[in-house]
């Protein structure tokens, strides 16, 4: 009983120590930012101070005007839904593709090709087809984040040690067993690195969809305030968007550590 109790704070301390430089950097940036704005008296429309920006989210008057709850709710649901769809569709389709070598050889080059295209440029066409709204932005986010997941997962399912496959074939393992016991565990690191890319791309897709056309969401606030040169809400929205991206990334990293406790994660993965 004592053991887990001891390990818990040790793990927590380790996490803190690992992330302390980043936390320190964030605090330093906020301090320098606030100091610079106060000392050089930078006009608010050029660079609002962090206090002004953050305050924007919590002051009741501005909240009535910008309706932050609706904006944040819209973007968060777009990001979460598109991420869930991307993860599910990407992983399931990858399993289907990897099941047959023939299918994989046929489709993978096409996916790699599509992934190298600037997919986000398709956003206006999606808008043209589906009109604006939640669904369109989810679709755009899905399109830009789907390919990293399916390519990574398929690669992970296929890049298995040949000797291992030979060995279990020799032991009369079925194709199903090879999948469950070897290919899928082998693909986990690839899946998680795909999901990490997708976590950022979903935010990017949702925001760009809102940039191109929408009537709500944080991207809408950003683009609308740009027209009126109203900078504080832009910063407030950017802070929330960044937190959203970092939080989703952190959740995926946490899930990775829980699912693969044996796997050491490098900190500087793209």
């Amino acid at each position: 009983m004592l053991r887990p109790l001891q390990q818990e704070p040790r793990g927590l301390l380790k996490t803190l120590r690992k992330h302390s430089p980043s936390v320190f950097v964030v605090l330093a940036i906020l301090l320098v930012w606030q100091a610079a704005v106060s000392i050089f008296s930078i006009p608010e429309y050029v660079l609002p101070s962090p206090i002004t920006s953050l305050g924007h989210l919590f002051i009741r008057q501005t909240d009535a005007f910008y309706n932050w709850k609706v904006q944040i709710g819209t973007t968060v649901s777009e990001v979460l839904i598109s991420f869930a769809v991307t993860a599910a569709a990407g992983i399931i389709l990858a399993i289907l593709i990897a099941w047959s070598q023939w299918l994989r050889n046929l489709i993978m080059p096409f996916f790699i090709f599509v992934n190298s295209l600037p997919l986000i440029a398709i956003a206006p066409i999606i808008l043209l087809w589906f009109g604006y709204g939640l669904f369109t932005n989810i679709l755009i986010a899905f399109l830009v984040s789907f390919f990293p997941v399916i390519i990574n997962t398929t690669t992970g399912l296929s890049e298995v040690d040949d000797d291992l496959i030979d060995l279990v074939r020799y032991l009369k393992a079925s194709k199903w067993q090879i999948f469950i016991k070897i290919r899928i565990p082998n693909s986990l690191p690839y899946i998680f690195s795909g999901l990490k890319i997708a976590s950022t791309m979903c935010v990017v897709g949702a925001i760009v969809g809102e940039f191109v056309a929408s009537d709500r969401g944080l991207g809408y606030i950003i683009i609308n305030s740009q027209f009126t040169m109203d900078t504080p809400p832009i910063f407030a929205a950017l802070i929330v968007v960044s937190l959203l991206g970092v939080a989703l990334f952190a959740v995926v990293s946490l899930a990775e550590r829980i699912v693969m406790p044996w796997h050491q994660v490098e900190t500087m993965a793209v």
Partner: protein
Amino acid sequence: MRASAVSITKSIIRFFVKHYTKLISLAAFLVLWQLVITVFGIKEFIIPSPLATFSTLFVPDIAQRYNWLLHIRTTISEVLISFVVTAATGVFVALLMTWSRALRRVITPVLTLLNSLPKIAFAPLFLIWFGYGVVPNVIIAVLIAFFPVVINTATGLNAVEEDLLDLVHYLHASKLQVFLKIRIPNSLPYIFSGFKISTTLCVVGAIVGEFVASARGLGYLLKDAQAMIDSPPMFASLILVSVFGLSLFGAISILERVAMPWQVRDEVS
């Protein structure tokens, strides 16, 4: 004169022979696309046929409506400038990080933090700060394409065999020599794979910058045509944008082969 003409014809023939499967599948795709549109009578504003799409580019009467040259030139220059800036600053920052431990301690957490942000959301801010035009779009493109180059280059500079470093230390190699003779050549494959990732990101950055606010460029044309529900030029712009991305990617691949003739290339990136 004749010799060069012959060699050009020869290399054109060689290109067709080498890539004939791809060319055939491309042609088949275009024919199928045209057939589907004609047979099912799909309306042009939903999906234009390849004929309608390409005629917006090549039929002079229609093409002059869209001022293609201006838009193409704008987007190409944004992409090229941002790529050159990205490549130069990215490699430079990675060299600094590897050269000095103190700088690495300072730069790494900043990079990790910035890398995890959805940087494209910051685009409207640059438009407020720099007005619209080529400059903010280049800055946006650099901002999103910069990190893969830095991270890849730094990884390559550090992924050096320890034994090799021990050996040259033993032989009293200077830090500069270690960089020039070992670390930099070792990092070339990593640098080029970073460059390849950033080619697409430069195109993405330039296009999104143009979406957000601009008066020219293919991103502007895409958004403008969307407002008019005029889809053939949208498809034509998408094709052009993809071709830019792929050509830049191809150019980097050629450069890679020239810079590292010894490298046996494997084509999964």
